[in-house]
Structures are given as C-alpha cells and as structure tokens.
C-alpha cells in the first residue's frame, strides 16, 4: 500500500504542476494545455471515431511491416548462423546497411513507394528486420555444439537436424527478436507517418502541432504510449498462453 501511494506521489505532483502552468500562464496558450483539455481532446477524438481510424491505420502498417520482417529475417538469421558461406557473403553487406539509421530511409521510401501504405511498411520492415535478424542469428549461433554433434550420431539428414534441433533451439531468440521488433515497428510507423502521410496516429499528431493544438498532440502521445504498452502486453500474453508455451517453449 505504501509502495503504491509513493509511486502515485510523483505523477500527482507532475500533473498538478502541469495543470498550474497550463492554466495560469497566458504565454502558455496554444503551446501548453491543461490535463483536462488533453482528456477532453482524447474523449472527443474517440467519440468521433477519428482515434480508432488513426490507430487502425497505424496498427495495420506496423503489423504489416513487422510480419514481413519476421518472415524474412528469422529464417535468414538462422541460416546465416548455420551456413558459413552464406554468412560470409551476406554478412558484410548487411553490416554496411545496418548502421544506416532506418530513419534515413524515409525520404527514399517516399520517392519509391509514395505516401500510402507502401513507404510506411517499408520503413517499419527495415527497422524490425535488423532487430529480428540479430536476435535470431545470436540464438542460432549459440546452440551447444555438443548437441549438434550428438545429433549426427542419430541422423545425417541436414534437413532433420535443422527441423528438430536448430529450429527449436533458435525459437527463443526469434521470439525475443519478434518482441523487440514489434516495439521498434510501433515507433517506426509513428516517425514514418510524420512525413508524406495523410492518415495515422503520427500524421494526426504532427498535424495537430502544426495547427497549434497542444491538447490534441498530447492526447495522441498518450495513444502512442497506450498502444505501445498493449502491443507488448498482448505479445507476451500470447506467448504465455498454454498453446504458446507448448509450441514456442
């Protein structure tokens, strides 16, 4: 109980100070809004349906890019860890592309794919791709070599080894990568929607800032945080269900 109340103390002080500044300072008008105004803006956009539309569009882009990245990066990461030739050929190219911040791809993505779903999914895909790739690679390359040696006494089939040993052993890393990748995907779609977009949470937020509507900007920031939290919680929840535990370890 005491711990709980202490944890609430600081947010209460912050909100009170924010309310005071927002309400009392005339200079703050159009720049800072009170917490009540943020709540009103939030409720209003939820009631008008705008909120759900924006969240839906952004989620679709984030999940689309993330799923594409997962399908490409997880097998590639595992394959690169187990096949030295592949690693030597593709590794250096990926190591050159990886430090290029995904954000730097945005202008090019708009040139290539326009302002619709394509460019957003491309950006989200790049961000999640490397996160998932690195995690899958690490997991697949740290499989106990003794285990792999033991397997060769039972079977010489590389396919069976891959299916029954490498894949299960790498799954934990792939899942971790998928979880981090999902968080990155959500951040990626927000930044991708700032430029060259006409829908989505990111677009709505920047648009509100350009129109000097701080309450709407902050309501959207709250939305970003809530969706980010929920994506993480739902992902963890799915992994921890009985079915998830059975098949995904």
């Amino acid at each position, binding site marked *: 109980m005491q711990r709980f109340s202490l944890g609430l103390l600081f947010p209460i002080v912050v909100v009170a100070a924010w309310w005071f500044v927002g309400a009392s300072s005339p200079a703050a008008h159009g720049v800072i809004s009170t917490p009540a105004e943020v709540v009103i803006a939030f409720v209003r956009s939820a009631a008008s349906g705008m909120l759900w539309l924006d969240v839906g569009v952004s989620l679709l882009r984030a999940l689309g890019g993330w799923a594409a990245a997962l399908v490409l990066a997880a097998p590639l990461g595992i394959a690169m860890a187990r096949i030295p030739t592949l690693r030597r*050929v593709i590794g250096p190219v990926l190591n050159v592309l990886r430090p*290029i911040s995904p954000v*730097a791809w945005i*202008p*090019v993505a708009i040139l290539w794919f326009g302002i619709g779903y394509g460019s957003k999914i491309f950006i989200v895909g790049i961000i999640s791709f490397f996160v998932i790739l690195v995690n899958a690679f690490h997991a697949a390359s740290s499989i106990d070599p003794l285990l792999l040696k033991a397997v060769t006494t039972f079977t010489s089939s590389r396919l069976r080894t891959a299916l029954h040993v490498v894949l299960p052993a790498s799954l934990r890393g792939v899942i971790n*990568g998928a979880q981090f990748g999902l968080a990155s995907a959500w951040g990626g779609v927000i*930044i991708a929607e700032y430029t060259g977009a006409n829908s989505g949470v990111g677009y709505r*937020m920047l648009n509100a800032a350009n129109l000097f509507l701080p309450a709407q900007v902050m309501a*959207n920031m709250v939305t970003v945080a809530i969706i980010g939290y929920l994506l993480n919680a739902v992902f963890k929840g799915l992994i921890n269900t009985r079915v998830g535990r059975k098949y995904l370890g």
Partner: protein
Amino acid sequence: MRSSRIVQHFTGFTGFVVLFVVWEAAIAVFRPAPVVLPSPWHTFEALLWIAHSDKAWADVGISLFRVAAGFAVAIVTGVPVGIALARSAFFRHVLAPTLEGFRFVIPFAWIPIASLWFGLHESGKVFITWYAAFFVIAFQTEAGLRQVDERLVKAAKTLGAGSRELLRKVYVPAAAPMIVTGLRLGLSFAWISILAAELVNAKAGIGYFTMNAADFFRSDQAFAAMGVIGAIGFLMDRAFRVLERRKFAWHRTTDAIQ
C-alpha cells in the same frame, strides 16, 4: 590458415560485388529515372560533392552538436538517476513507476510537441536527443549497480569504506561495463532521434539535408547522405565497442537487443 583468411576476405567482398552488379543491372534493365534509383557512380559523385560542400559539412556538424549536447545532458542526469534508483528504495518507489510509464512515450512521439514548444530553436533538438538517451543510460546504470557482487561490498565495508567511498570505489567501477553499454545504446538512440527530428522540423542538419535532397528529387544526394549517416552511426558504435573490449575485457556484454 593465411590463405583461408584471404579466401574469407574474398567471399566477404563478393557480397558487395553482387550488390553493385545487381544495382547496375537493375539500372541497365529497368532504366529507372535517376530520381527513383541513381547509379552507383552518380551516388559516388554525389558523395564527392558532399565532401567538397561546406554547407553539407555544416549540416553534419550541426547534427553532431545536437547529439553531443543531448547526450552529455543525458549522461549527467541519467547516471545519477540510475545510481539513485539502485541505491535508494524511497527514490525507486517514488520515481520508478513514472519512468516506466514514460518509457512507452517513445522519443519519436515527442517530436511534434517539441516543435510546438521550442519551434526551430536548438533546445528542442537537444531535448529530443536527451530524452532518447536518458532512459537507457539510467536503466543500464541501475541494472549495473544491482549486479555488483555483494562480497565485494562486504569486503569494502569490512575495510572501513563509507557509503561515498563504497559508491566511488566499488559500485561504479564494478557497474562501469553496463554503464558504458548504456552510453553506447543511448548515443545510437540519440543519433536516430535527431535524424527523425530533422526530417520533420529543422532548417539544418544531415537529416534535413537528406529530406531536402529528396524533396528536390536529388536522390543521388539523398543516397550519398545515407552513406554519411551510416558511416557516422558505425563510427559511434565502434568507438564504444572498442572501449568496452579494451577496458572491460573481463566483462561479457550481453545485449542481444541491438
């Protein structure tokens, strides 16, 4: 051994050869407009142009300044907050829930409100880079202090170390590897965030340069700028990794995240 290393280097090189061949072939076959896909040669020429352009250098310098300023403030604030989180139960109870909540308000989400609050002023950019680096530095510092071997602490106490000495001579040195990992991640987050902020709301900086080049359909310059961005990101990361390997060879860094 030696020959196999040469072979290894050679196979590493083939990836790039393939990349360039595919790049050139795509241009020869599809004949895309230079706006859509500049040739490798044009991109290289644009890179040379950037190297000779004072304005481009100034853009790079401004971006680096913004990152350095925000990163410095993040170190000065993040490390003490991390220490306090690890050492004081009261501080942890008061602050930890709030920090955990703010973690979900990602740095990118602050860009619009920062542009509203600060306009084009530099402090807005520094705020973004600070915010991007602060959390990972604070949390890595906290985690680093928490994993310090209790036997070390007990031994130091037996030898009469006070709480300040304990912090300076036991906790911080033992936590240093994880703090440095936090700094490395924080710097890379700050670098990504400043590019994002400059794409959206800036009149200078390498992110602005890239966006501007694309707006004027100079994708050769945009591609070259991406190369510059990649090189800077790589050097930042490498500098910290070398530091980690040289100074803290005894500590195995575990960060599958990045």
